[in-house]
Protein backbone atom coordinates (compact mmCIF):
# COMPACT_ATOMS: atom_id res chain seq x y z
CA UNK A 1 0.00 0.00 0.00
CA UNK A 2 1.82 3.02 -1.32
CA UNK A 3 0.28 5.70 0.84
CA UNK A 4 1.88 8.05 3.30
CA UNK A 5 -0.29 7.90 6.36
CA UNK A 6 -0.48 7.14 10.04
CA UNK A 7 -3.39 5.28 11.58
CA UNK A 8 -5.96 5.05 8.76
CA UNK A 9 -8.79 6.07 11.09
CA UNK A 10 -7.07 9.43 11.58
CA UNK A 11 -6.60 10.10 7.88
CA UNK A 12 -9.33 12.69 7.44
CA UNK A 13 -8.82 14.50 10.72
CA UNK A 14 -5.07 14.75 10.16
CA UNK A 15 -5.64 15.94 6.62
CA UNK A 16 -7.91 18.71 7.89
CA UNK A 17 -5.42 19.64 10.60
CA UNK A 18 -2.70 20.05 7.99
CA UNK A 19 -4.94 21.87 5.54
CA UNK A 20 -6.03 24.47 8.05
CA UNK A 21 -2.49 24.84 9.43
CA UNK A 22 -1.05 25.39 5.96
CA UNK A 23 -3.70 27.82 4.74
CA UNK A 24 -5.15 29.70 7.69
CA UNK A 25 -5.81 32.59 5.33
CA UNK A 26 -8.42 30.45 3.55
CA UNK A 27 -9.72 27.75 5.85
CA UNK A 28 -10.84 27.33 9.44
CA UNK A 29 -12.61 24.52 11.25
CA UNK A 30 -16.12 25.55 12.27
CA UNK A 31 -18.68 23.98 14.59
CA UNK A 32 -17.75 21.21 16.95
CA UNK A 33 -17.98 18.10 14.82
CA UNK A 34 -14.40 18.66 13.63
CA UNK A 35 -15.55 18.01 10.09
CA UNK A 36 -16.69 21.40 8.88
CA UNK A 37 -14.38 23.78 7.06
CA UNK A 38 -15.51 27.36 6.60
CA UNK A 39 -13.99 30.45 5.08
CA UNK A 40 -11.35 32.07 7.26
CA UNK A 41 -12.82 35.43 6.32
CA UNK A 42 -16.60 35.18 6.11
CA UNK A 43 -18.30 36.65 3.06
CA UNK A 44 -19.96 40.07 3.15
CA UNK A 45 -22.95 40.24 5.52
CA UNK A 46 -26.09 39.48 3.57
CA UNK A 47 -24.29 37.34 1.04
CA UNK A 48 -26.06 34.09 0.22
CA UNK A 49 -24.14 31.14 1.67
CA UNK A 50 -23.10 28.13 -0.39
CA UNK A 51 -22.44 24.83 1.28
CA UNK A 52 -21.24 21.58 -0.12
CA UNK A 53 -20.29 18.29 1.42
CA UNK A 54 -19.23 14.82 0.57
CA UNK A 55 -16.65 12.19 1.17
CA UNK A 56 -12.95 12.90 1.57
CA UNK A 57 -10.37 11.83 -0.94
CA UNK A 58 -11.33 14.14 -3.79
CA UNK A 59 -9.19 17.22 -3.10
CA UNK A 60 -9.56 19.98 -4.19
CA UNK A 61 -13.21 18.76 -4.16
CA UNK A 62 -14.92 19.42 -1.80
CA UNK A 63 -13.15 21.25 1.00
CA UNK A 64 -10.56 22.90 -1.17
CA UNK A 65 -13.11 25.09 -2.91
CA UNK A 66 -14.07 27.00 0.22
CA UNK A 67 -12.97 30.57 -0.38
CA UNK A 68 -13.93 33.97 -1.77
CA UNK A 69 -15.87 33.65 -5.00
CA UNK A 70 -16.47 29.98 -4.26
CA UNK A 71 -18.01 28.16 -1.28
CA UNK A 72 -18.66 29.30 2.28
CA UNK A 73 -18.50 25.99 4.12
CA UNK A 74 -18.13 22.29 3.56
CA UNK A 75 -18.99 19.18 5.57
CA UNK A 76 -16.40 16.46 5.21
CA UNK A 77 -17.06 12.74 5.50
CA UNK A 78 -14.63 9.88 5.76
CA UNK A 79 -12.95 8.84 2.55
CA UNK A 80 -15.65 8.32 -0.09
CA UNK A 81 -18.36 8.44 2.61
CA UNK A 82 -21.04 11.03 3.22
CA UNK A 83 -20.62 13.36 6.14
CA UNK A 84 -23.32 12.96 8.73
CA UNK A 85 -26.44 15.10 8.91
CA UNK A 86 -25.05 16.68 12.09
CA UNK A 87 -21.93 17.79 10.28
CA UNK A 88 -23.91 19.15 7.37
CA UNK A 89 -26.14 21.11 9.71
CA UNK A 90 -23.02 22.66 11.22
CA UNK A 91 -21.80 23.63 7.78
CA UNK A 92 -25.15 25.24 7.00
CA UNK A 93 -24.94 27.22 10.24
CA UNK A 94 -21.40 28.36 9.45
CA UNK A 95 -22.41 29.53 5.98
CA UNK A 96 -25.55 31.42 6.85
CA UNK A 97 -25.37 35.15 7.28
CA UNK A 98 -29.12 35.59 7.17
CA UNK A 99 -29.61 35.45 3.43
CA UNK A 100 -30.08 31.70 3.26
CA UNK A 101 -27.89 28.89 2.06
CA UNK A 102 -27.66 26.95 -1.17
CA UNK A 103 -26.81 23.27 -0.74
CA UNK A 104 -24.75 22.40 -3.82
CA UNK A 105 -23.51 18.84 -3.99
CA UNK A 106 -23.27 15.64 -5.96
CA UNK A 107 -26.01 13.12 -6.63
CA UNK A 108 -25.26 10.38 -4.08
CA UNK A 109 -27.98 8.76 -1.99
CA UNK A 110 -26.33 9.26 1.37
CA UNK A 111 -25.50 12.89 0.70
CA UNK A 112 -29.03 13.67 -0.38
CA UNK A 113 -30.65 12.07 2.66
CA UNK A 114 -28.21 13.73 5.00
CA UNK A 115 -28.47 17.17 3.43
CA UNK A 116 -32.25 16.87 3.57
CA UNK A 117 -32.11 15.89 7.22
CA UNK A 118 -29.62 18.67 7.95
CA UNK A 119 -31.92 21.18 6.28
CA UNK A 120 -34.79 20.05 8.47
CA UNK A 121 -32.60 20.54 11.53
CA UNK A 122 -31.56 24.10 10.71
CA UNK A 123 -35.04 25.09 9.58
CA UNK A 124 -35.79 25.38 13.28
CA UNK A 125 -33.08 28.00 13.46
CA UNK A 126 -34.66 30.01 10.66
CA UNK A 127 -32.05 29.14 8.10
CA UNK A 128 -33.60 28.89 4.66
CA UNK A 129 -32.01 26.32 2.38
CA UNK A 130 -32.28 25.55 -1.29
CA UNK A 131 -30.77 22.63 -3.14
CA UNK A 132 -29.00 22.08 -6.43
CA UNK A 133 -27.74 18.57 -7.08
CA UNK A 134 -25.01 17.92 -9.60
CA UNK A 135 -25.68 14.95 -11.86
CA UNK A 136 -23.20 15.47 -14.66
CA UNK A 137 -21.73 11.99 -15.26
CA UNK A 138 -23.23 10.89 -18.55
CA UNK A 139 -21.82 7.37 -18.19
CA UNK A 140 -23.96 6.63 -15.16
CA UNK A 141 -27.42 6.80 -16.75
CA UNK A 142 -28.92 7.47 -20.20
CA UNK A 143 -30.30 10.92 -21.02
CA UNK A 144 -33.83 9.77 -20.26
CA UNK A 145 -32.77 9.11 -16.67
CA UNK A 146 -30.45 12.10 -16.40
CA UNK A 147 -31.61 12.82 -12.85
CA UNK A 148 -30.09 9.52 -11.72
CA UNK A 149 -26.63 10.45 -12.94
CA UNK A 150 -23.75 10.72 -10.48
CA UNK A 151 -22.22 14.07 -9.71
CA UNK A 152 -18.56 14.31 -10.65
CA UNK A 153 -16.20 17.07 -11.77
CA UNK A 154 -19.06 19.21 -13.05
CA UNK A 155 -19.31 20.53 -9.52
CA UNK A 156 -16.14 22.53 -10.10
CA UNK A 157 -17.97 24.70 -12.61
CA UNK A 158 -21.06 24.87 -10.42
CA UNK A 159 -19.04 25.94 -7.36
CA UNK A 160 -17.25 28.59 -9.37
CA UNK A 161 -20.30 30.00 -11.07
CA UNK A 162 -22.64 29.88 -8.09
CA UNK A 163 -19.89 31.31 -5.89
CA UNK A 164 -19.45 34.27 -8.21
CA UNK A 165 -23.21 34.82 -8.36
CA UNK A 166 -23.39 34.91 -4.56
CA UNK A 167 -20.41 37.24 -4.42
CA UNK A 168 -22.15 39.49 -6.94
CA UNK A 169 -25.01 39.89 -4.49
CA UNK A 170 -27.76 37.77 -6.02
CA UNK A 171 -30.37 36.59 -3.54
CA UNK A 172 -30.97 32.96 -2.62
CA UNK A 173 -33.37 32.37 -5.48
CA UNK A 174 -30.99 34.03 -7.90
CA UNK A 175 -27.96 32.05 -6.77
CA UNK A 176 -30.00 28.86 -6.85
CA UNK A 177 -31.23 29.60 -10.35
CA UNK A 178 -27.71 30.29 -11.61
CA UNK A 179 -26.33 27.16 -9.93
CA UNK A 180 -29.09 25.04 -11.46
CA UNK A 181 -28.39 26.53 -14.86
CA UNK A 182 -24.69 25.68 -14.49
CA UNK A 183 -25.56 22.15 -13.38
CA UNK A 184 -27.94 21.68 -16.30
CA UNK A 185 -25.31 22.92 -18.76
CA UNK A 186 -22.57 20.52 -17.60
CA UNK A 187 -21.74 17.04 -18.84
CA UNK A 188 -18.86 14.84 -17.72
CA UNK A 189 -17.33 11.55 -18.64
CA UNK A 190 -14.34 9.80 -17.15
CA UNK A 191 -11.97 6.94 -17.80
CA UNK A 192 -10.08 5.14 -15.07
CA UNK A 193 -6.76 3.34 -15.43
CA UNK A 194 -5.98 2.27 -11.90
CA UNK A 195 -7.63 2.14 -8.52
CA UNK A 196 -6.89 4.16 -5.44
CA UNK A 197 -6.79 2.72 -1.96
CA UNK A 198 -9.26 3.85 0.68
CA UNK A 199 -7.04 4.11 3.78
CA UNK A 200 -9.36 2.19 6.08
CA UNK A 201 -9.92 -0.49 3.46
CA UNK A 202 -6.19 -0.86 2.91
CA UNK A 203 -6.54 -2.45 -0.49
CA UNK A 204 -7.42 -1.19 -3.98
CA UNK A 205 -11.11 -0.34 -4.38
CA UNK A 206 -11.27 -2.24 -7.65
CA UNK A 207 -9.00 -4.49 -9.66
CA UNK A 208 -7.99 -3.62 -13.15
CA UNK A 209 -5.27 -5.32 -15.15
CA UNK A 210 -1.99 -3.58 -15.90
CA UNK A 211 -2.97 -3.03 -19.52
CA UNK A 212 -6.65 -2.24 -19.09
CA UNK A 213 -8.77 0.86 -18.73
CA UNK A 214 -12.44 1.44 -18.03
CA UNK A 215 -14.47 4.03 -19.86
CA UNK A 216 -17.12 5.77 -17.79
CA UNK A 217 -16.02 4.42 -14.44
CA UNK A 218 -17.15 6.50 -11.46
CA UNK A 219 -14.86 8.30 -9.08
CA UNK A 220 -15.39 5.68 -6.38
CA UNK A 221 -14.83 2.83 -8.80
CA UNK A 222 -18.45 2.48 -9.85
CA UNK A 223 -18.79 0.51 -13.08
CA UNK A 224 -18.49 2.25 -16.41
CA UNK A 225 -19.58 1.52 -19.94
CA UNK A 226 -16.77 -0.71 -21.10
CA UNK A 227 -13.52 -2.18 -19.91
CA UNK A 228 -10.88 -3.08 -22.43
CA UNK A 229 -7.21 -2.78 -23.30
CA UNK A 230 -5.69 0.62 -22.74
CA UNK A 231 -6.10 2.69 -25.91
CA UNK A 232 -3.91 5.45 -27.32
CA UNK A 233 -4.45 8.91 -25.88
CA UNK A 234 -6.02 10.27 -29.05
CA UNK A 235 -8.51 7.41 -29.23
CA UNK A 236 -9.49 7.91 -25.59
CA UNK A 237 -9.93 11.64 -26.05
CA UNK A 238 -11.96 11.14 -29.23
CA UNK A 239 -14.32 8.68 -27.63
CA UNK A 240 -14.83 10.88 -24.59
CA UNK A 241 -15.58 13.85 -26.84
CA UNK A 242 -17.93 11.71 -28.96
CA UNK A 243 -19.87 10.79 -25.85
CA UNK A 244 -20.04 14.32 -24.51
CA UNK A 245 -21.08 15.84 -27.81
CA UNK A 246 -23.71 13.15 -28.38
CA UNK A 247 -25.21 13.96 -24.99
CA UNK A 248 -25.03 17.74 -25.43
CA UNK A 249 -24.67 18.64 -29.10
CA UNK A 250 -23.01 21.95 -29.87
CA UNK A 251 -23.86 24.42 -32.58
CA UNK A 252 -21.45 26.70 -34.37
CA UNK A 253 -20.90 29.80 -32.29
CA UNK A 254 -21.64 28.09 -28.96
CA UNK A 255 -19.40 29.26 -26.16
CA UNK A 256 -18.14 26.50 -23.89
CA UNK A 257 -15.55 25.76 -21.27
CA UNK A 258 -13.96 22.37 -20.79
CA UNK A 259 -12.22 20.80 -17.83
CA UNK A 260 -9.61 18.16 -18.63
CA UNK A 261 -9.19 16.68 -15.20
CA UNK A 262 -6.77 14.18 -13.72
CA UNK A 263 -8.28 11.70 -11.29
CA UNK A 264 -5.05 11.96 -9.30
CA UNK A 265 -1.99 10.09 -10.46
CA UNK A 266 -2.27 10.95 -14.14
CA UNK A 267 0.24 13.77 -14.67
CA UNK A 268 -0.49 17.08 -16.42
CA UNK A 269 1.74 16.03 -19.31
CA UNK A 270 -0.86 13.44 -20.27
CA UNK A 271 -3.72 15.88 -19.82
CA UNK A 272 -2.11 18.22 -22.31
CA UNK A 273 -1.66 15.39 -24.78
CA UNK A 274 -5.41 14.79 -24.49
CA UNK A 275 -6.22 18.48 -24.71
CA UNK A 276 -4.95 18.64 -28.32
CA UNK A 277 -7.82 16.40 -29.39
CA UNK A 278 -10.34 18.14 -27.14
CA UNK A 279 -9.52 21.49 -28.69
CA UNK A 280 -9.57 20.11 -32.22
CA UNK A 281 -12.99 18.59 -31.67
CA UNK A 282 -14.45 21.74 -30.17
CA UNK A 283 -12.96 23.81 -32.96
CA UNK A 284 -14.48 21.42 -35.47
CA UNK A 285 -17.88 21.88 -33.84
CA UNK A 286 -17.49 25.61 -34.30
CA UNK A 287 -17.51 26.21 -30.55
CA UNK A 288 -15.52 28.94 -28.88
CA UNK A 289 -13.50 27.62 -25.90
CA UNK A 290 -13.46 29.96 -22.91
CA UNK A 291 -11.10 29.50 -19.96
CA UNK A 292 -10.26 25.83 -20.43
CA UNK A 293 -9.18 24.11 -17.23
CA UNK A 294 -6.47 21.46 -17.31
CA UNK A 295 -5.25 19.90 -14.11
CA UNK A 296 -6.33 18.16 -10.95
CA UNK A 297 -9.66 19.74 -10.05
CA UNK A 298 -11.62 16.72 -8.81
CA UNK A 299 -9.71 13.59 -7.90
CA UNK A 300 -9.89 10.20 -6.27
CA UNK A 301 -6.63 10.35 -4.35
CA UNK A 302 -4.04 8.42 -6.37
CA UNK A 303 -6.38 6.95 -8.97
CA UNK A 304 -4.98 7.13 -12.51
CA UNK A 305 -7.36 8.36 -15.15
CA UNK A 306 -9.04 11.43 -16.54
CA UNK A 307 -12.39 13.06 -16.88
CA UNK A 308 -13.67 15.70 -19.25
CA UNK A 309 -16.39 18.13 -18.24
CA UNK A 310 -18.02 20.26 -20.90
CA UNK A 311 -20.16 23.24 -19.98
CA UNK A 312 -22.18 25.28 -22.42
CA UNK A 313 -22.12 28.92 -21.41
CA UNK A 314 -24.57 31.75 -21.84
CA UNK A 315 -23.48 35.32 -21.14
CA UNK A 316 -24.43 35.09 -17.46
CA UNK A 317 -22.60 31.81 -16.84
CA UNK A 318 -19.54 33.07 -18.70
CA UNK A 319 -19.39 36.25 -16.63
CA UNK A 320 -19.53 34.30 -13.39
CA UNK A 321 -17.05 31.71 -14.62
CA UNK A 322 -14.51 34.42 -15.34
CA UNK A 323 -15.11 36.36 -12.10
CA UNK A 324 -12.32 36.36 -9.52
CA UNK A 325 -12.04 33.60 -6.94
CA UNK A 326 -9.39 32.42 -4.55
CA UNK A 327 -8.60 29.31 -2.54
CA UNK A 328 -5.50 27.23 -1.93
CA UNK A 329 -6.09 25.21 -5.09
CA UNK A 330 -7.44 27.66 -7.61
CA UNK A 331 -7.20 31.33 -8.14
CA UNK A 332 -8.85 33.38 -10.87
CA UNK A 333 -7.89 37.02 -11.14
Amino acid at each position, binding site marked *: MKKILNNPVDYVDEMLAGLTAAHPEFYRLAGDTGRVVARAMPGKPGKVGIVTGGGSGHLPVFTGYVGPGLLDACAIGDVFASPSAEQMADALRAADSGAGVLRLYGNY*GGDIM*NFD*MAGELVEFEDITCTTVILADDIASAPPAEAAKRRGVAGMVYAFKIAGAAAEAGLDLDGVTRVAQKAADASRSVGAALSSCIVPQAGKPTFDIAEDEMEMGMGIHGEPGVWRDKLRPADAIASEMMDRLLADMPLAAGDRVSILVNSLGATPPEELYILYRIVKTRLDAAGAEVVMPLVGRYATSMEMAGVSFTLIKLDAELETYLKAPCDCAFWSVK
Partner: protein
Amino acid sequence: MTLTVTDLRAAIARLATAMEREFDALNAADGALGDGDLGVTMKRGASAMADLAPDLPDDLGQALLACAQAFTKTSGSSYGTLMATGLMSMAKTLRGHTSVDPAQISALIGGARDAMQTRGKADLGGKTVLDSLDAMAKATADLTSREAIATAVAEAAAAAQLALRDKPATIGRARIFGEKTIGMDDPGMLAMTSIAAAIADRG
Protein backbone atom coordinates in the same frame (compact mmCIF):
# COMPACT_ATOMS: atom_id res chain seq x y z
CA MET B 1 -46.76 -7.77 29.14
CA THR B 2 -45.51 -4.46 27.81
CA LEU B 3 -42.03 -3.52 26.64
CA THR B 4 -39.88 -1.00 28.49
CA VAL B 5 -36.43 0.52 28.31
CA THR B 6 -35.12 -2.66 29.93
CA ASP B 7 -36.21 -4.62 26.89
CA LEU B 8 -34.68 -1.96 24.67
CA ARG B 9 -31.36 -2.29 26.51
CA ALA B 10 -31.38 -6.07 26.08
CA ALA B 11 -32.23 -5.74 22.41
CA ILE B 12 -29.40 -3.26 21.91
CA ALA B 13 -26.95 -5.63 23.57
CA ARG B 14 -27.99 -8.47 21.24
CA LEU B 15 -27.82 -6.14 18.25
CA ALA B 16 -24.31 -4.96 19.13
CA THR B 17 -23.12 -8.55 19.42
CA ALA B 18 -24.75 -9.50 16.14
CA MET B 19 -23.36 -6.52 14.26
CA GLU B 20 -19.88 -7.23 15.57
CA ARG B 21 -20.28 -10.78 14.29
CA GLU B 22 -21.73 -9.77 10.91
CA PHE B 23 -19.17 -6.98 10.32
CA ASP B 24 -17.22 -8.71 7.57
CA ALA B 25 -20.25 -10.34 6.00
CA LEU B 26 -22.12 -7.04 5.68
CA ASN B 27 -19.09 -5.21 4.35
CA ALA B 28 -18.57 -7.97 1.82
CA ALA B 29 -22.21 -7.99 0.73
CA ASP B 30 -22.14 -4.21 0.27
CA GLY B 31 -18.72 -4.41 -1.37
CA ALA B 32 -20.00 -6.69 -4.13
CA LEU B 33 -21.83 -3.81 -5.79
CA GLY B 34 -21.38 -0.85 -3.47
CA ASP B 35 -18.74 0.74 -1.32
CA GLY B 36 -18.44 -2.02 1.24
CA ASP B 37 -19.20 0.05 4.32
CA LEU B 38 -22.43 -1.47 5.54
CA GLY B 39 -20.74 -3.53 8.25
CA VAL B 40 -18.89 -0.41 9.39
CA THR B 41 -22.11 1.60 9.54
CA MET B 42 -23.98 -1.02 11.57
CA LYS B 43 -21.13 -1.94 13.87
CA ARG B 44 -20.43 1.71 14.69
CA GLY B 45 -24.07 2.58 15.14
CA ALA B 46 -24.88 -0.45 17.26
CA SER B 47 -21.85 -0.01 19.46
CA ALA B 48 -22.66 3.68 19.92
CA MET B 49 -26.15 2.59 21.04
CA ALA B 50 -24.60 0.05 23.39
CA ASP B 51 -22.45 2.80 24.88
CA LEU B 52 -25.59 4.85 25.49
CA ALA B 53 -27.68 1.95 26.78
CA PRO B 54 -26.94 2.22 30.51
CA ASP B 55 -27.92 5.89 30.47
CA LEU B 56 -31.03 5.63 28.33
CA PRO B 57 -33.99 7.34 29.99
CA ASP B 58 -37.21 5.52 30.76
CA ASP B 59 -39.10 7.66 28.28
CA LEU B 60 -39.02 5.46 25.22
CA GLY B 61 -39.32 8.46 22.93
CA GLN B 62 -36.23 10.06 24.42
CA ALA B 63 -34.44 6.72 24.47
CA LEU B 64 -35.11 6.05 20.78
CA LEU B 65 -34.13 9.61 19.88
CA ALA B 66 -30.76 8.96 21.49
CA CYS B 67 -30.52 5.73 19.49
CA ALA B 68 -31.27 7.65 16.30
CA GLN B 69 -28.51 10.10 17.12
CA ALA B 70 -26.11 7.20 17.64
CA PHE B 71 -26.47 6.72 13.89
CA THR B 72 -26.44 10.36 12.74
CA LYS B 73 -23.30 10.98 14.75
CA THR B 74 -21.34 7.94 13.63
CA SER B 75 -22.29 7.66 10.00
CA GLY B 76 -23.27 9.55 6.92
CA SER B 77 -23.95 6.46 4.85
CA SER B 78 -27.39 5.82 3.42
CA TYR B 79 -28.20 2.96 5.71
CA GLY B 80 -27.17 4.80 8.84
CA THR B 81 -29.26 7.78 7.88
CA LEU B 82 -32.24 5.56 7.11
CA MET B 83 -31.84 3.78 10.44
CA ALA B 84 -31.77 7.14 12.19
CA THR B 85 -34.84 8.24 10.26
CA GLY B 86 -36.75 5.09 11.23
CA LEU B 87 -35.75 5.31 14.87
CA MET B 88 -36.71 8.99 14.95
CA SER B 89 -40.16 8.12 13.64
CA MET B 90 -40.65 5.59 16.42
CA ALA B 91 -39.29 8.08 18.91
CA LYS B 92 -41.89 10.64 17.89
CA THR B 93 -44.69 8.13 18.34
CA LEU B 94 -43.50 6.99 21.76
CA ARG B 95 -42.56 10.37 23.19
CA GLY B 96 -43.79 10.51 26.80
CA HIS B 97 -44.34 6.76 27.07
CA THR B 98 -42.33 4.49 29.32
CA SER B 99 -43.86 1.32 27.96
CA VAL B 100 -45.27 0.02 24.74
CA ASP B 101 -47.80 -2.68 24.04
CA PRO B 102 -46.45 -5.38 21.66
CA ALA B 103 -49.57 -4.88 19.57
CA GLN B 104 -48.21 -1.44 18.64
CA ILE B 105 -45.07 -2.91 17.08
CA SER B 106 -46.58 -3.33 13.65
CA ALA B 107 -47.60 0.31 13.49
CA LEU B 108 -44.20 1.44 14.75
CA ILE B 109 -42.45 -0.53 12.03
CA GLY B 110 -44.87 0.77 9.43
CA GLY B 111 -44.26 4.32 10.61
CA ALA B 112 -40.51 3.83 10.32
CA ARG B 113 -40.95 2.41 6.83
CA ASP B 114 -42.99 5.44 5.78
CA ALA B 115 -40.55 7.94 7.24
CA MET B 116 -37.65 6.17 5.57
CA GLN B 117 -39.52 6.14 2.31
CA THR B 118 -40.08 9.87 2.56
CA ARG B 119 -36.39 10.35 3.31
CA GLY B 120 -34.99 8.07 0.61
CA LYS B 121 -37.70 8.46 -2.05
CA ALA B 122 -37.48 4.80 -3.05
CA ASP B 123 -40.46 2.72 -4.13
CA LEU B 124 -41.72 -0.32 -2.32
CA GLY B 125 -40.78 -3.43 -4.25
CA GLY B 126 -37.50 -1.79 -5.21
CA LYS B 127 -35.41 -4.35 -3.30
CA THR B 128 -34.34 -2.21 -0.39
CA VAL B 129 -34.62 -2.25 3.36
CA LEU B 130 -38.08 -0.73 2.87
CA ASP B 131 -39.31 -4.08 1.61
CA SER B 132 -37.99 -5.80 4.73
CA LEU B 133 -39.78 -3.34 6.96
CA ASP B 134 -42.95 -3.57 4.92
CA ALA B 135 -42.95 -7.34 5.27
CA MET B 136 -42.26 -7.07 9.01
CA ALA B 137 -45.08 -4.57 9.53
CA LYS B 138 -47.53 -6.69 7.60
CA ALA B 139 -46.53 -9.96 9.27
CA THR B 140 -47.11 -8.48 12.71
CA ALA B 141 -50.29 -6.57 11.90
CA ASP B 142 -52.72 -8.80 13.74
CA LEU B 143 -50.39 -10.20 16.39
CA THR B 144 -50.46 -9.28 20.05
CA SER B 145 -48.20 -11.75 21.82
CA ARG B 146 -44.64 -10.72 22.30
CA GLU B 147 -43.27 -14.11 21.33
CA ALA B 148 -45.40 -14.45 18.22
CA ILE B 149 -44.38 -10.97 17.14
CA ALA B 150 -40.71 -11.74 17.69
CA THR B 151 -40.94 -14.83 15.55
CA ALA B 152 -42.93 -13.07 12.85
CA VAL B 153 -40.50 -10.15 12.67
CA ALA B 154 -37.49 -12.40 12.20
CA GLU B 155 -39.19 -14.65 9.69
CA ALA B 156 -40.66 -11.81 7.67
CA ALA B 157 -37.29 -10.10 7.25
CA ALA B 158 -35.68 -13.33 6.07
CA ALA B 159 -38.58 -14.13 3.76
CA ALA B 160 -38.54 -10.66 2.22
CA GLN B 161 -34.85 -10.94 1.53
CA LEU B 162 -35.48 -14.19 -0.32
CA ALA B 163 -38.54 -12.90 -2.13
CA LEU B 164 -36.76 -9.90 -3.58
CA ARG B 165 -33.53 -11.71 -4.38
CA ASP B 166 -34.41 -12.29 -8.00
CA LYS B 167 -35.39 -8.72 -8.75
CA PRO B 168 -32.86 -6.20 -10.02
CA ALA B 169 -31.64 -3.46 -7.68
CA THR B 170 -33.30 -0.09 -8.26
CA ILE B 171 -31.59 2.16 -5.76
CA GLY B 172 -28.16 3.44 -4.70
CA ARG B 173 -24.86 2.28 -6.05
CA ALA B 174 -26.17 -1.17 -6.95
CA ARG B 175 -28.81 0.20 -9.33
CA ILE B 176 -26.25 0.88 -12.00
CA PHE B 177 -25.44 -2.84 -12.24
CA GLY B 178 -29.02 -3.53 -13.28
CA GLU B 179 -29.67 -7.09 -14.39
CA LYS B 180 -26.42 -8.31 -12.89
CA THR B 181 -27.94 -7.86 -9.45
CA ILE B 182 -30.64 -10.42 -10.08
CA GLY B 183 -30.04 -13.32 -7.73
CA MET B 184 -27.99 -11.19 -5.36
CA ASP B 185 -29.28 -10.17 -1.96
CA ASP B 186 -29.72 -6.49 -1.30
CA PRO B 187 -27.18 -5.74 1.42
CA GLY B 188 -29.60 -3.55 3.33
CA MET B 189 -32.20 -6.35 3.37
CA LEU B 190 -29.52 -8.82 4.42
CA ALA B 191 -28.60 -6.49 7.26
CA MET B 192 -32.23 -6.14 8.28
CA THR B 193 -32.57 -9.92 8.46
CA SER B 194 -29.72 -9.95 10.98
CA ILE B 195 -31.03 -6.92 12.83
CA ALA B 196 -34.52 -8.38 13.12
CA ALA B 197 -33.19 -11.74 14.28
CA ALA B 198 -31.01 -10.09 16.91
CA ILE B 199 -33.68 -7.75 18.27
CA ALA B 200 -36.27 -10.51 18.25
CA ASP B 201 -33.78 -12.87 19.86
CA ARG B 202 -34.27 -15.38 17.07
CA GLY B 203 -30.64 -15.30 15.88
